[in-house]
């Protein structure tokens, strides 16, 4: 009886610790597994030195390569919204050809046209969707999809 009395606070503390730890683990897991755009980074200026070498010097740089990651079982889609557009418009970009085993992928996105978009900011998203044919290139959305996981936006400034 006395041993139980001694143990009881410890058991309670342990249960509390487990209870408090559970949501934190879940949150970490979600953060780790959600879709994310790895490159470019938020605040980058386009063209990025060394990275956007495909943009000819002195000419418009409207197409850039990006790297992203999605969780296992998700199909990645890239989307771009020009911040200058009102109302909001989100454009689905050319499809991702393949996803690596670790969930990372390469792709490219368009930031405006040759004559439109210079000096403007664009937000780039990665959508991780359960369906492979959820979107098609050039689809126009007015809001973020609720049936797909959406990465935090990465906003870049196109300088030329």
């Amino acid at each position, binding site marked *: 009886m006395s041993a139980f009395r001694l143990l009881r606070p410890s058991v309670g503390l342990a249960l509390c610790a487990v209870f408090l730890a559970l949501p934190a683990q879940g949150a970490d897991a979600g953060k780790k597994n959600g879709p994310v755009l790895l490159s470019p980074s938020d605040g980058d200026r386009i063209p990025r030195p060394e990275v956007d070498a495909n943009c000819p010097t002195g000419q418009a740089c409207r197409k850039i390569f990006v790297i992203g990651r999605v969780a296992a079982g998700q199909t990645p889609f890239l989307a771009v919204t020009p911040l200058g*557009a009102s109302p909001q418009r989100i454009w689905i970009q050319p499809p991702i050809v393949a996803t690596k085993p670790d969930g990372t992928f390469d792709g490219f996105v368009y930031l405006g*046209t040759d004559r439109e978009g210079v000096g403007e900011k664009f937000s780039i998203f990665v959508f991780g969707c359960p369906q492979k044919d959820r979107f098609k290139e050039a689809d126009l959305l007015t809001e973020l999809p609720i049936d797909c996981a959406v990465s935090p936006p990465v906003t870049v400034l196109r300088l030329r």
Partner: protein
Amino acid sequence: MRHGDPGFTVYVDGEIRKFTGRSNAIQLDGSDGAVEIFDDESGTRLAAIQLFEPEDVLNDPWTSDVEVPSGGHLTYTLGAEGNPPRLVLSVRHEAQASIAPSTSPEPKRQARPLWARRVAFAACILLMLGTTTVSIVRYDQLIHDLGWDEPFAVRFAAVDRRVLQVNVTVNRNVIREVFIDWGDSTNPDPAPDGIRIYPSPDAKRYRRTFVISARHEYPPVSGEGVSATARVRLVPFALPRTRPETLTEDKLHHTQAVLVTTDGIILDPPQARLRVAAPEPQAIVSTATELTVEMSAIRAPVHVFGADATNPLTYRYLGSIPPPAPGKKSREAHVVDTSGLGAKGSFKLVLVSTSLLAPVPAQEFPWQDIPRAAPRAEIELRHAGAILEPEPDAAVSGIDTVRAVASIRGQYASVIVHPVREGRFWVQNAPLPALEFAEFRVAARFGGRDQYEVWVALAADPTLLPEGAVLEQRPLADSAGRPVYWLGPVFVHLE
């Protein structure tokens, strides 16, 4: 407080008045009005002094005092000196320690009893808990003392044809830095978050506030002008954990939409709106598609493009609509030729208002070449079907084949030939049950030398257009009120 710094500032009619000599005295003129004393550290107003006639205080100086929030005690005296007498304000600031009575020798330090230590401990805990509340109250009090709703004010003004000016007034005790991003696409700011304009030697101080003024000239523009959003970002000093309402993120990030036109800068320009009011989405339309387009604050031509569902990445230019007069709205009907679209399903009409494109008829654009931030409207439509043969302007023989496809179910197809000079409509066949997306052929008979229109009618009533019937005009509905869908016309001539 710095050594030698009095710790307070006297303003006379809004301007700092410095003390003369070493006596913290200020001579006042008869024309002086408001006299105020502010604590340098907290920024609070300590006193507003009502001026007297010099004669009234010549022999009987008026004295008052006030506690200073940052510590100490302020005594100020309004008197008069000289001949003729002139008002003199003298102010004396004493630190708390120097005015504390010290009439008895310092008692010997003794060990505090246990209850006193417990009380002190409890007081410490309460003090810690109250810190956040106190800091919020201090901020609120500080802001409230300003007499404003906000501890800052941001005002934009168009000061020249292409010059935008911003005036930012900040409380120096609340706001630490101010940044401006002009949103000029031709000249992006060198720093990602804008240029820092405060603190700056150019800022003008007025009591506890600084007034910062900055200007930017946008480049020459043409056409519909260039839209931009100027952004002011205010960075406050360290804030309590719970922010005062006046310092929310929204309020600290001030934006101003501008439209730079050839005539000047428009602040808060009306939002451009482009809408297809008719037909309804997914409606079945003829190849001469009539669109009712609503335009508001549209400044550039509206280009109409068509994109077939089978090839949505390519936009075909179909025509343009001129913008309404500046400041006017419009709602007008326009007809575009959509033949060749929707042969195997739906198609999309995309309207884009831009002067960045100068398309020519039938020119095709990849989707990514269409400006994406320009005013835009889209509508998905369907054709009832399409005439595949003969092609427009083809030469036909006396009896020739008409080939067509229907895109809707449950219809009966009739081919009709319309000699333009003769003027009537000749039904060529007994109505055929048309299967969805299945081609059908009919041998049509053309008469004498004339220009002909070839039509295909799709009707739900198989008895509406019997073979050999000659009609004065095309029926648009059957006896039950169901619509008759007309494909065409395709203009041909006899070879």
